[in-house]
Each structure stands twice: as structure tokens, then as C-alpha cells.
């Protein structure tokens, strides 16, 4: 009745390649397509590299006091110096490193806690679930920064305490996420199949369920990390976080509480602020790219 015309544009070789790639290849291909996310990843990589080589390249130590106090940016001090004469650029780079380190570590702590508790609550249900979920409710019912401040005041500020405190306040969200994922996975055939096959609980939890919650966990972890960076900055800014002389993005900004510095010495507070924004934006974009890349609707 009618003539069959040729097929519309389909890249045969690409299709062929795509249909044979592994899950993570697909995810990475999609990640790369998210331009802001991919650029952010490169930016973060470069930053880490710069932070790593700062001690080698910079003529000043981060806490080394030079002769210039509150100096404007110049050839010797590209970003000027602070009131006691420390080189701002060196401090900015080490501070960024510290902030990233604190955020990353705190994220790891909260992710581990959240994943373990979420797995337990979701898989075993019953009393274990009720207790874990009530504790989650309690922690979540605190205005979050208040809890952090109280804890920081009690345990004393300082880098390691901040890692633990920020790690501890962030797990409930992760626990809830993992729990709801586990609860739905518990009803999925391959998990039930493993139960019928008499596989041990540890195996089911860590080899059947956990690998399938990696996507949401990773995505959530990036948002936790971004939030943690902001919180660390705020805490340090309030003087309850990383303590001087150790530099962090937040406590570098501490000096700006004084209106004279705020008004007349922008090189002391503008760069750390902008750096915070850049780093947090990068982490957020990476999270968004991951969300796109892992979206099951996009995956075949």
C-alpha cells in the first residue's frame, strides 16, 4: 500500500557501543554531558592540585608572620596580608584545603552512619526500625545549627570535633533515604530470590541491596557535602569552628565582623567568601550532574 522509506537518523555505531557499555560507563557518559557538572569536576580537581602544591610553591608558610601588616595586594603578596602579616593567598589555599577536608570527612562520617543505620532500620524493621527512626526524628527536630553550636560549645571547637559534630548531625537524612530505598528493595524479586536461596543476611544487605542504593546515596552525599561546607564556614565564622591559627574559609572571614576591615580591607574577606561560593557551587553542580547521570529514566 505504501512504500517503506528509509529509517530516520540513528547513529548505528553509537547505538551499538551504547548497548554494550557497562552501567558505570553509561553513568560517566551522561555525567560528561552535563556541562556545568563536568566543568565543576575539572575545577575541583585543579583546585585540589593547587592546594596540594601550595606548600611547595608559596614562599610563605600559612601561619608565617611577615613584616607587612594588612598590606594591599602586591607582587610579593598577591592577595595582600592580614592584620598580623600573614600571606592571604597562602592562607586562602590552605584554608580551602582544610575546609574541603573537614567537609569531606564529615560527609564520610555522616554517610557511613546514615547508610548503616538506614540499612538496619529498613531491612530488619520492627523494633530496630522504630528506635532508629525515633532517634532520627529527635536529631532532625533540632534546628540544626543550634545543635551544632551547642555541641561545639560543649566539646570545644576545633577541627576534629567539627568533623565529628557535622558528621553526626547530618546522618538522619541519609538514614531516612537509605531506609526507604531498602524498604522498597526488600520487596524486589532479586532480594527475595536471595532469601529463598538461603543466602546469609550480611550477603543480602551488602551485596544485593547496598550496590543498588549507591546512586541515591552518592547524590545525597554531594548535597550533604555542600551543606557541610556552608556550615563549617558559618561555625568558624562564629568562632565555634576551626580555630586560629589554622586557616579555614570560615575563620578567614571572621575578621570581617569588624566594620573597619569590612569597609577598608576587602582583600581580607572577599577572596575567601568567593572561594567558598565557587567550591560549594562546584559540589552542587556535581551533585546535579550525578542526579542526571543516575536517573533511571535516562538509563536503558
Amino acid at each position: 500500500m505504501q512504500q517503506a522509506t528509509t529509517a530516520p537518523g540513528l547513529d548505528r555505531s553509537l547505538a551499538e557501543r551504547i548497548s554494550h557499555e557497562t552501567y558505570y560507563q553509561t553513568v560517566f557518559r551522561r555525567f560528561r554531558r552535563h556541562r556545568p557538572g563536568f566543568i565543576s569536576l575539572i575545577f575541583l580537581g585543579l583546585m585540589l592540585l593547587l592546594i596540594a602544591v601550595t606548600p611547595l610553591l608559596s614562599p610563605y608558610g600559612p601561619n608565617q608572620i611577615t613584616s607587612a601588616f594588612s598590606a594591599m595586594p602586591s607582587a610579593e603578596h598577591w592577595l595582600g596580608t592580614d592584620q598580623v602579616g600573614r600571606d592571604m593567598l597562602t592562607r586562602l589555599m590552605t584554608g580551602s584545603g582544610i575546609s574541603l577536608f573537614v567537609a569531606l570527612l564529615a560527609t564520610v562520617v555522616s554517610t557511613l552512619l546514615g547508610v548503616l543505620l538506614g540499612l538496619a532500620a529498613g531491612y530488619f524493621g520492627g523494633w530496630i526500625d522504630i528506635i532508629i527512626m525515633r532517634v532520627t526524628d529527635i536529631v532532625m527536630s533540632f534546628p540544626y545549627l543550634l545543635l551544632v553550636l551547642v555541641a561545639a560549645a560543649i566539646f570545644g571547637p576545633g577541627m576534629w570535633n567539627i568533623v565529628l559534630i557535622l558528621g553526626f548531625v547530618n546522618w538522619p537524612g541519609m538514614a531516612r533515604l537509605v531506609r526507604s530505598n531498602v524498604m522498597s528493595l526488600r520487596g524486589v524479586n532479586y532480594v527475595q530470590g536471595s532469601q529463598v536461596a538461603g543466602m546469609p543476611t550480611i550477603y543480602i544487605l551488602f551485596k544485593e541491596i547496598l550496590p543498588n542504593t549507591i546512586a541515591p546515596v552518592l547524590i545525597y552525599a554531594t548535597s550533604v557535602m555542600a551543606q557541610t561546607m556552608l556550615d563549617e564556614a558559618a561555625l568558624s565564622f562564629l568562632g565555634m569552628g576551626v580555630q586560629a591559627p589554622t586557616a579555614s574559609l570560615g575563620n578567614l572571614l571572621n575578621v570581617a565582623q569588624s566594620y573597619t576591615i569590612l569597609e577598608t580591607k576587602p582583600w581580607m574577606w572577599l577572596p575567601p567568601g568567593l572561594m567558598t561560593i565557587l567550591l560549594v557551587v562546584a559540589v552542587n553542580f556535581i551533585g546535579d550532574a550525578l542526579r542526571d547521570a543516575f536517573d533511571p529514566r535516562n538509563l536503558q
Partner: protein
Amino acid sequence: MFERLGYVGPLLDVRNLRTTFSSDWGQKEALDGVSFTVSPREILCIVGESGSGKSVTALSLMGLLPRNGKVLNGEAFFEGRDLLKMKERELDEIRGGDMAMIFQDAISSLNPVFTIGNQLIEAVRAHSSVGRKEAREEALGILQRVGLSEPELVLERYPYALSGGMRQRVMIAMALAGKPKLLIADEPTTALDVTIQAQIMQLLRSLCEETDLSVILITHDIGLVAQMADRVIVMYAGQVVEQSDVQVLFNSPDHPYTQGLMQAVPSIYDDKARRLVAIPGTVPEHYQDIEGCRFASRCAYKVDECDLPQVLSYVASCESQMNFPHCVRCHRAARGELPPYGADERCTPVDVVAQISQAPAAGELKNETKGDTNGRRA
């Protein structure tokens, strides 16, 4: 069955419909040159497996394709006007009015936060300028027509509070609200139990007989096709592979795929000793690249010639039925080269009528029972 189908020209005339979906690696073809017609007051069944393009056909016609879907070309004349050239606004005059559609999954197809009344009255008022009160009256009438016995109550309910069968009846009621000439039913009973399916099918058939309604029934169930269709379109891999009057199709399916489909379905009337004839293999994944017959890789009758493009052509033996020509997209079948189908090993169906007649008639007894309980004789 034939008499009520006096041919007056097609209600819907679809020509060379091509729809694609954009995917990771470019445009993926879903429909390749689908053409068919629907006559007034007939039931046309589109049968095929998942991915054959039967639902995409319906969605293309209704302008309801998802974001990544696109009709590349083709024409679809509904009472002479091309649906595919219409703007959204023009299409909206026809959608839900002269042409309505119901979907497979009634629970997700009804908005959970509005009452049935709200959604049904909205449908009534979408295509007629009646007031709220009259619309309500009309809605009640339609609910009764689709066999919901307590329409007042149903109007107040939210979708979640209804059973599966009732929801599908409500969907049908919403479709009927615009007094359609054509109803597209996309697997309306796949999610329902068989006894409920029987009820819904009975309802569709009676609607068809009582009003001037044409129905496109999309299904994968060959049994339903036999029970419901006037005419049948068989789809495979985005193409129409065979179309025919239902009697003709079941007596002599010509396309090897159609034959396979009919033999692959086990029936309760089968002789158990008979082995099902399964179609080997699976639907090819990137079928748009296959120039020749798309079924060839699974076909028992394949010859070299099958790698050439195939067209839908008349079956030689069917010239007498020009209104409903029997067409097949298989050059060998069209030339009558394939061995005749019909080595039908099915055992004769045991007649249910006979069984029922052994027992008291259903209605009779129901009354008796009622008398029983009312009169307390026992």
C-alpha cells in the same frame, strides 16, 4: 455482525504515520508508515506485542505523545480534517469530544486529589456549554450508563476509594462525556481480573451497538480480538503486518507472525498433549535498520527475497471483500506461497451453554434466592 457495518466511508483515515522518539543515540523509530481506516460503528482491534507500536499509534493520533516523541510525517483524517496538522487548540476541540481515549491503568490515569464528580463534570463541560447543575445531571446519567449503580455516591468519591473495575468504568464514563464518535481503548482491561474484563468488554460492546460509537481496541490478547473485533490490524516492530476482517483473519491468518501469535497462545480448550508452537527469538532491538521483513529473523519461511523491503499488499484470495481487504506485509503470503494455516489441533470447545442449561438459569435462581431470604421459607 456484518450487516450493521454498512460502509459509508471512513471515520478515521490514517495514512503513512511515522513517529520517532529521541534517545541517547538519535532518533529511534516507533512507527513506520502505519495506515488504516476506522469505519463508523465498527470495532477495530490493534493487536501486537509490547513495543510493536500499537499504543504509540493511539497517542500519536490523540496528540498525547511524551515530550521526546514526535510525529515525523503522515496524515490522519478524522471526518476529513487532518489531526496531525492541527494546532493544540484545534485538537482540543476534538480530543475528549468526538474522539476520546481510555488507558490501561485507571488508577494512575485518574487525578488522585479530585473527586470523580469533579473530573467527570469537567469532562462533560469541556465540550458543551451546559451549566454546573445540568452537567451534574448528565454525569449521573453517564455513570448509570456505564453500569455504576449508585452514581450519586460515586460522584462524591475519590479515585482511590473505588475498585479497579469501577475506576475503569469511570474512565469510560469520562470518555463518553464528550459524546464521542470514536473511542480509543488502550489495553483497558490488562490490569483487571478476567471476570471484570468480561464485564468491561460487555459494556464496550453494548455501547457500540446502542450508540454510533466506533472503537479502536488496542490489546495483546488474541482471545479478546476474537471476541470483540470487527476488523483487526496486526502490528509488529512498528509496522502493520496484516489487516483483515476478523473472521477471515482467524480462518486464514496469512502472515507468519499472525499465525505464530495464534498458535502460541494456550487455551483451556486445547488438547494438553499438543505442544505449543512458540515463535523463536525475540523482537529485534534496532528494527528500524532492517530494510527487509522485520520478522524474517524469526520466520520459518524465510527466503533470500525477504531481505528486500516489504509492502502491505492484498492477499490474492480476498478480492471479493473490497470493503475490508485482507492485506499482508509478506510477499510470499500475498502470492499464496506459504502452506495453508488451519492444521488446527484444538479440541472442540466444550459448550458452556450446555453446561449452564443443565443448571437452572441464572436469573431464575437469583429470584428464587431472593424469595428464599425474603420469605424465610427454608
